[in-house]
């Protein structure tokens, strides 16, 4: 069965630190890749997505992610985090040619200390 793994369930950083959240998936076919974010008290919203083309994608709020096909990875990065980045981050995958249901990682809770 397809699965998505997020390596860290909780991450605590200080403001201005660099961030990298890992995501690996186990499906061998063509996929679309997503990072969603859920700020406290808010609903899930799209941070960035990869469909095709340049494997380095840029999203909102200074986030970026790199698709490395050979490693089945789609890690999320931000060079300098802010207190307002405190949220839960989810990696998700859907299969090309399926009904495009999203398969989700378990999420990473990120806490930024001011």
């Amino acid at each position: 069965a397809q699965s998505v793994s997020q390596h860290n369930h909780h991450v605590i950083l200080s403001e201005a630190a660099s961030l990298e959240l890992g995501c690996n998936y186990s499906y061998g076919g063509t996929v679309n890749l997503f990072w969603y974010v859920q700020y406290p008290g808010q609903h899930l919203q799209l941070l960035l997505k990869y469909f095709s083309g340049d494997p380095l994608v840029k999203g909102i709020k200074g986030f970026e992610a790199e698709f490395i096909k050979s490693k089945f990875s789609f890690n999320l990065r931000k060079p300098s985090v802010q207190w307002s980045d405190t949220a839960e981050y989810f990696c998700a995958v859907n299969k090309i040619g399926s009904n495009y249901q999203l398969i989700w990682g378990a999420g990473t809770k990120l806490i930024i200390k001011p």
Partner: protein
Amino acid sequence: GAGVSQSPRYKVAKRGQDVALRCDPISGHVSLFWYQQALGQGPEFLTYFQNEAQLDKSGLPSDRFFAERPEGSVSTLKIQRTQQEDSAVYLCASSLGYRGDEQFFGPGTRLTVL
């Protein structure tokens, strides 16, 4: 409305009761998904509609779960004879097309079964 809305936001049910959860997708969105999110986990797919057609219900955990979207817009997820293990957040998402477009999420309905 501007986004996906869900009602009620919170529902407490006694074991054995039936519940109905409503989703209003973004107007004009063809695809509609229901996901179940247990505490501390990522969402899991339940069912998918393309307009009024339920094309995939492979994620519904039992025959107590039933979903419909009779006119291709509003959708209802019904759970009969609720059990404690049904306690979760139920998320609805819609997307414009049917080819892996970004999914827009509602705030979810938190169901607690006592």
